């Protein structure tokens, strides 16, 4: 039996009459790379916010890293890492300042911070850039650094919201090397992406349409189920009937 790190049961979020996330139920395992896909407006962001302890559900239940999404949201925040393409690091702080700032927020003490940031900078080969502003780094490096910072405190789960948007194809692959390494170390990776080749790199995929989880399985099984050769076509089959086209 695999360790379950995220479990939701009929998790629902309503905004007035609008049901953004509609009774989603799933289990995500330790060390798994879980692809969280869906059309624009399908309810992915709302679901992620609930799982990160940033939004209280309207009904249903869920635990993240063993903590309840209604009552233990602060404990959840300490057990997870988060990174998105839109917000990752402070551009006007240096590399080392960013590492120390985020490490501090995630609760690392001074001694641990010092050791971990030195090690991280060495691993990423960023020694010459350590004192430079993050804004001066190429986008690819920023994204790799942001990911490393998000898992600096060895969280149980890291949430990645479109981490590779706009990144060049070589860096995109290097980024996935980091994801694999993290998963091999037992960190669960919960990731959204618009690149369908990246969907193939996930152990399992869930596909949201109009607030519901319409499919959940391994990429190979999903392709078999829909009898199509690529994830792109699985996505197309599922999402083309979508009624909602919000962001």
């Amino acid at each position, binding site marked *: 039996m695999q360790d379950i790190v995220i479990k939701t049961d009929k998790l629902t979020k309503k905004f007035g009459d609008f049901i953004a996330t509609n009774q989603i139920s799933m289990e995500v395992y330790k060390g798994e790379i879980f692809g969280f896909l*869906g*059309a*624009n*407006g399908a309810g992915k962001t709302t679901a992620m916010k609930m799982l990160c302890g940033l939004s209280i559900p309207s009904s249903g239940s869920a635990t993240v890293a063993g903590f309840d999404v209604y009552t233990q949201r602060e404990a959840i925040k300490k057990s997870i890492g988060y990174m998105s393409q839109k917000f990752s690091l402070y551009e006007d702080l240096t590399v080392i300042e960013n590492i120390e700032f985020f490490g501090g927020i995630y609760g690392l003490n001074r001694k641990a911070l010092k050791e971990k940031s030195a090690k991280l900078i060495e691993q990423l080969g960023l020694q010459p850039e350590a004192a430079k502003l993050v804004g001066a780094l*190429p*986008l*690819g490096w920023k994204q790799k650094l942001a990911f490393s910072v998000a898992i600096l405190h060895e969280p149980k789960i890291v949430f990645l919201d*479109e981490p590779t*948007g*706009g*990144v*060049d*194809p*070589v*860096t995109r*692959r290097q980024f*996935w090397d980091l994801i*694999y390494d993290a998963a*091999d170390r037992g960190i669960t990776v919960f990731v959204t992406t*618009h*690149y*369908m*080749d*990246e*969907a*193939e*790199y996930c152990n399992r995929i869930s596909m949201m349409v109009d607030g519901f989880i319409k499919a959940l399985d391994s*990429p190979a099984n999903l392709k078999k189920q829909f009898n199509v050769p*690529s*994830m*792109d076509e699985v*996505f*197309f089959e599922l*999402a*083309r009937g*979508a009624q*909602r*086209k*919000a*962001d």
Partner: protein
Amino acid sequence: MMDVQVRGLRKTYGKPPVTAVDTISFDVKKGELFGLIGPDGAGKTSIFRMLTTLLLPDGGTASVNGFDIVKDYKFIRERVGYMPGKFSLYQDLTVEENLHFFATLFNTTVEENYALVKDIYIQIEPFKKRRAGNLSGGMKQKLALCCALIHRPLVLFLDEPTTGVDTVSRKEFWEMLKRLKEQGITILVSTPYMDEATLCERIALLQEGKILSIDTPANIIRSYPDQLFAIKSDQMSWLLKELRNNPEVKTCNSFGEYHHISFKEIAADTESALINYLKKAGHSNLELFKTAPTIEDCFINLMN
């Protein structure tokens, strides 16, 4: 006739100067659907902003529809449509008001050019009384395209129209572009999605302000230097590491379900030797077959 001519165009920002566009040259033919393909920071937006006369170059020259981008900027502004990457319509005007506003700016009316935008506009017409700021992402994109077209431009610039848009909406958007092209409009479109490159007639692959290659997608794919193979096993992450350390393997990159590899030399037994080696190493369900490169393979090859 060339609708866009770019010669040695250059743009730098800041002090010390960072080069965003590094002395590039290309032509776009009248009525062509031309793609600038490259990641963030490749210089796509700077090129578009110079060609639409919103930014002055630091070197080189360019013309649009025969007019110089510096001297004749007023003529160019009448003749081009520009849809920026960032949503730039008036958020507190309604859908309808935005469209009328942009028509009026260009001394025309919505009625006069309605035929051109009709296909797209009818999709957002049910929401014509809604403020633009309250539209969904997909609808904003369609309204922005209508506003960029309503004065019947000769050349249309679309800066990353499909970024952050799901694959269903992306397919729809490219269908719209094809229909616009049939109306004779020259279209320059930029995208970070390599798979969209094949939807253009000609493309420029851009990286860090430089053009890596410029040709039809088919020719770029044809000029890939090596025979490419697709390979998979039950252990893809491990397989990747194994192949990277294999002395016979020249390149190895993950491509969705398969890894793409090329060999330093291909002999009669190259394929079977690799399969046997990997089997011995413990891989199961191995597949290896020849495959055609994609634009993304070409881009990676050109970057290295």
